[in-house]
């Protein structure tokens, strides 16, 4: 049974002289919600794109359930990018139909549940949706897929508290951790803390630490924020 476990083996991704990801070797556990946290520009987004098969490593390999991450991997990976997804002239309902036609694992019934859960108007063009509703739609489309690996790049960034709360609730209500693994990149650490099983801290292209959130809370490090600060300043 595939479940979305991701392995980086000596992965480097260079853009010219800059190494966005620098010799990273790590295995992310499956059936968990994993937070990829750290300062902006640390390589989180690039790492997600590598997992999604949307970028290729300059060196090393990225595997999802043992398979090399390539573009064709989009059959097993549901990626919610940081930038907007889809065509602005489609209505919400058309977007759902479009995703249904593209992704074999897309469940239209679930999509409809998510649409109503997120309170999205079916007949409105996606380009005319508010920023918050565009963010909700992106998450709804991603969660309507039964893909083993779900990737969300900064899903809460720049959104108001109500929208952030509905996205968090949507994720909790619809993700199936018996079959799925979720990796969320974020710098809003405090807010996602109750969501995460595992956290990986990334800075300057390297993963500095990966731990169970429960262990961090038990250690009295002052939660994720305290833990992150302690590692980043040493």
């Amino acid at each position, binding site marked *: 049974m595939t479940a979305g476990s991701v392995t980086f083996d000596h992965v480097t991704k260079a853009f010219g002289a800059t190494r966005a990801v620098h010799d990273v070797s790590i295995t992310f556990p499956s059936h968990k919600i994993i937070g990829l946290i750290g300062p902006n520009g640390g390589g989180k987004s690039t790492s997600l794109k590598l997992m999604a098969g949307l970028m290729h490593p300059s060196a090393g390999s990225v595997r999802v359930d043992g398979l090399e991450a390539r573009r064709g991997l989009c059959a097993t990976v549901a990626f919610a990018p940081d930038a907007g997804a889809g065509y602005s002239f489609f209505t919400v309902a058309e977007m759902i139909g479009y995703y249904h036609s593209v992704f074999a694992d897309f469940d239209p019934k679930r999509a409809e549940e998510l649409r109503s859960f997120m309170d999205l108007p079916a007949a409105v063009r996606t380009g005319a949706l508010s920023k918050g509703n565009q963010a909700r739609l992106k998450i709804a489309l991603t969660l309507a897929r039964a893909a083993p690996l779900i990737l969300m790049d900064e899903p809460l960034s720049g959104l108001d508290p109500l929208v952030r709360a509905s996205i968090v609730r949507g994720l909790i209500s619809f993700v199936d951790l018996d079959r799925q693994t979720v990796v969320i990149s974020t710098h809003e650490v405090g807010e996602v803390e109750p969501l995460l099983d595992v956290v990986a801290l990334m800075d300057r292209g390297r993963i500095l630490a990966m731990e169970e959130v429960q262990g961090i*809370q038990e250690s009295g490090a002052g939660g994720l924020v305290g833990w992150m600060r302690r590692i980043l300043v040493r």
Partner: protein
Amino acid sequence: MEPFSQNEPIYRQIMDRLCRAVVRGNLVPGERLPSVREMAVEFGVNPNTISRVYQELERLGVTETRRGQGCFLTDAERIATLRRELSRRAIDRLLTEMAAMGFSREEILRSVSDHLFGGDNP
């Protein structure tokens, strides 16, 4: 809902809240607890965290899982025991703190009694 503290695992904080609800009588013996998913949405936490909560409550004998039906509170007897345990723990915390400040047992007893039933403050 009250936010979680960052210095204790969330599963334990939820366990404490549920145990308090049981002892207060908000949840009654034999009652079915909400599903893992419902509880996760209610508390705004990862469903794995709630699974852990339910496992721990079962380990403590506070709940029992009936196959295919969900998670139920156990009988009144176990819950009466839980009530005594929680009371004892709360008293332990008070006594530890008072002892750390150098109060004698007699002083603690007198302060508590005065506080509860009025009388001259020490």
